[in-house]
Each structure stands twice: as C-alpha cells, then as structure tokens.
C-alpha cells in the first residue's frame, strides 16, 4: 500500500469537490448549524429559564454529541458522491486499469471523505467551544470548554463515527446506482447514534468519559467489521461485474 498513491486519488477528489457545490454545502452546513445555533439556543433559553443553570453541564455534553452525529452524516454525501459519482460517470474502469491497488483506491476515497469531515467538525467544534463559553461563563463562573470529555469525544469518537460512515457508504455505493439512493440508505447509519443521543437524554446512558469510551469501543468494532465487508465489496472484479 503506497500512501502517496492513495493521496493522489484523494487529491483528485478534492479538485472534483471544488466544482460540486452540493458537496461543499454538505460539508460546511452541519458544523455551522451546531456551532452557531446551539450557543444561540443556550443564550436564548438562559434568558427565559432560571432552572437552566443546574442542567447546563448535561445539556452541553448532550449538544456535544451532535459532533459525533455530524461526523457520521457528512461522509455520507461525500463518499457516496465520490464512489457512486464515479460509477455514474463510469470512470472507475480506467482507474482500475492503472497500477493502483484496490486498497490504494479505497484508501484514497476514504481520505477524500474523512479529511473534509474531520476538518469541518474540528473547525466547528472550535467555534462551538468559543461560542458556548461566551454564553455560559457568566452562569457557570468558569469556561466549560475545553474539557476532557469533549476532548475524548472529538479525538476518539468523531473519527470512529466518520470511518464507520465512510465504510458504510462504500458498501451502500456498491449496491445502488445514484447518489440520492446512496444518501437515502446512508441515513440508516445515523439511527444508532441518534438512539445513543436519546438514551443519554432519558438518562439510560451517560455521555461522560467512560460512557464515551464504551461507545467508541463499539464503534471501532463496527468499523473493523465494516472494513472487511467494504474491502470485499471494493475489488476490481466485483466492481466491474457485480456492482449494479
């Protein structure tokens, strides 16, 4: 596996994305919503509800989990376009006839979906932390962010969710013929994460460091399983003879 070749594939995809406004929007809209809207909600709700003060730490942790959901959401659009788009253009066949290995092509596709996702999520998280601290420091008396819980969420859980989404998109992309269908099926990968969020809201699970590490462990186990299914689906002969 030559990383330079995988990077070549990813670089080409980045160039393509520059001409695809839909992909650019799908990358930047979600983090903007979380990082700007949520501090505004806290500010607005804080002016109306006196009881918000006690619930604030839990609320901020819950809001933070949206970065995990976002990390799973963004690659759905990017990876689906990156693979199904090539299928539609039929540009995979000449690419497969080059000295690139299947693994290098797949890794390139994964990088092109992962890097923008992580960059968008980390940039959004920075704005989120600054915004949240600005609106909560008066009530809490200290800056809530950065903290270890959010650090674990960003550095351990967000990449796990993003990788899971990319691998799932590869598998879905091998079975559908258009980007919309890939996105529609892709949404299913968000359901477990939404379930975790709801479970935390009704106090079934806790999104503290231990809780996040357990969730991360489960996601990485899923990543490994999806990796084997994804790499089996992304093989030259499969792509040329069995992909729809």
């Amino acid at each position, binding site marked *: 596996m030559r990383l330079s070749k995988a990077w070549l594939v990813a670089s080409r995809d980045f160039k393509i994305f520059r001409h695809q406004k839909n992909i650019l929007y799908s990358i930047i809209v979600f983090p903007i919503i979380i990082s700007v809207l949520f501090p505004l909600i806290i500010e607005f709700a804080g002016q109306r509800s006196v009881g918000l003060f006690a619930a604030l730490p839990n609320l901020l942790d819950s809001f933070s989990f949206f970065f995990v959901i976002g990390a799973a959401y963004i690659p759905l659009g990017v990876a689906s376009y990156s693979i199904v788009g090539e299928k539609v253009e039929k540009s995979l066949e000449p690419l497969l006839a080059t000295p*690139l290995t299947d693994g290098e092509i797949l890794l390139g596709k994964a990088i092109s979906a992962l890097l923008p996702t992580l960059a968008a999520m980390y940039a959004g998280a920075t704005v989120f932390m600054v915004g949240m601290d600005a609106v909560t420091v008066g009530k809490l008396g200290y800056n809530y962010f950065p903290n270890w819980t959010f650090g674990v969420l960003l550095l351990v859980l967000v990449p796990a969710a993003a990788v899971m989404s990319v691998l799932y998109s590869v598998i879905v992309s091998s079975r559908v013929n258009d980007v919309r269908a890939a996105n529609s099926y892709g949404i299913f990968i968000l359901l477990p994460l939404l379930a975790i969020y709801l479970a935390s809201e009704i106090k079934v699970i806790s999104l503290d460091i231990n809780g996040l590490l357990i969730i991360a462990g489960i996601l990485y186990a899923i990543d490994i399983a999806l990796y084997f299914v994804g790499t089996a689906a992304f093989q030259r002969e499969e792509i040329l003879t069995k992909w729809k």
Partner: protein
Amino acid sequence: MIDTENLTKKFGDLTAVDSLTLHVDDGQVFGFLGPNGAGKTTTVRMLCCLISKTSGTAKIGNYEIGNKEDSLKIRKIIGFVPDNVGLTENLTAYDNLDFYAKIFDCTETQRKENIKHFLEMLGLWDKRNVLAGTFSKGMKQKLAIARALVHEPEILFMDEPTANLDPESAKTVREFILELKKQKKTIFLNTHNLDEAQRICDKIAILNTKLRAIGTPEELERSICGKSTVITLEQVNDAVLNALKKLSLRNLTVDGNKVTFDVVDPDKENSPVVEAIVLAGGHVRVINVVGSTLEDTYLKLVRESA
C-alpha cells in the same frame, strides 16, 4: 507481445470466453471482431488484469496474467480505452491527463510534454482548461485516448473506440490510430466496424465465445469464403453447360447468361474453363474474378457459430 493459450472465462454457468489461443506481435495492430456478447470486452478485461481468468494462460510481454505481482506490472505497461470513455467530468482535460500521468509516475517534465503532445495531436490543446463534462462525444473519446497514452504505454487496448461517434470524429480517431501504427505501437483493437478493422489492422481475430478465425485481413477473406469467377457469355446453351459440368467446378451456378463458380487460384483455374466453353461453341464476353469481403467472412463465421 500478447500470448494467450486456452484462455477461458466463465461467469457461473455462462462461458464468456472459451479456450482462446492467440498471439499478437510487437508493433502489430490486432483487430478483435465479434458480435455483442462474443466475449471481446471480457477478453480485454482479462488481459488488462481487471478480471480474473477461469483457466488457461495469458502473457503480456513477460508478465503472466493471474499472477498478483505481475498484474501491477502489466497495468503499468498498458494503456486502456474503455468502451464508455469514463472521463472525470468535473475535471479539466488537462487535469484528467495529469492525474493519470502522476499515477504512472511520469516525471513533471514528461507529464507536461506528453500532455501537450497528445492534446495537440488530437486537437484538444486549446480546450485543455475546459471541464471534460462539457465536451462532445468525439472530443471525450479523443481525450480518453490521450489519457491512455499519456504514460507512453507499450501496449494500447482500445474497446470500440469509434462506436457512437459521428463519421468525422470516427475518421479523426481512425487516423490517429493509423498514426500510432506508423510509430509501431502495439494496439489491441476491439471493434464491430469491419471496414475499420480491414483498413487499420495487421491481423484480425473473429471471436464468438470461441475463436472462429485468425489471420491477416487478406488471409481471412481468402481462406474462409474464397473467390468466385463470373463468366458472362453471349448465351449459355446445353453444350456449354455439359462442358462445364464435366469440369467438376465448385458451386457452379448459371443465372441467365452468367456462369459463376468458386476458385482458389483464378489465374490457373480460369484458363481450362474458358477453353472448354470455347470448344463447346460458346462466346465469352467478360470474365470477372470476385473476391469475398471481410464482411462475408465475418458473417459466415458468426452465423455458423450462432
């Protein structure tokens, strides 16, 4: 350069290519003819190491298909033009070629020179910064050919390069292939177009799952359907007819005042026939030797194998 022996590909119960044995020399333009579903694309995909073989052997240069290490080496020395061009539509013509040149480890100088060279040769240099998705079919096909050549491959595989092109674009592509032929590039050309194959190819194979015939265009025309002699007389009477029947001519037919029969070597075989006609009192007006075309050969073989 390309050698296959009993190369076979099966998809489940379906045999797509059956025991294909052929040889393509270095610098040769090899035409691969066959109807839809004959196994042409499957053969090219096997030779380009895109799909596995079921049995048999095949070598590209000194590398063997099916061997994992050799597969990468084979893909390094070949260029491939698929039947559906497969350009990246959201990249410019230049970027499409630049990406492929980088994959093949061309140096920066080599990349720049080759991209310019092939885009100029194919009349696309002025459009180098235009997105490939905005190109016409003919321009896309030309760009796909340039993409396959940008790393200077030893062998070029082309799958139906002129299919679906307007006559003018098809002519440009054909002329370009002829230019490559002059440069002694080894080309494996899948095509439906018999006229194209006859004009461009040094050697032709006709495939319909199994190999039906192989040879130069002239050899195929001669060996499969042969030639016919058509003699036009003033009148074909019983005496002339009896004289001709005594000669045991192959596929003798009489239509009005025309007598037709198959010949292998017209120079030798026609003289005794004319002599017999004259001795029987016939008056010969015109003698024509009619050769079968590649189309006759192709249709005969394909119908026989259907």
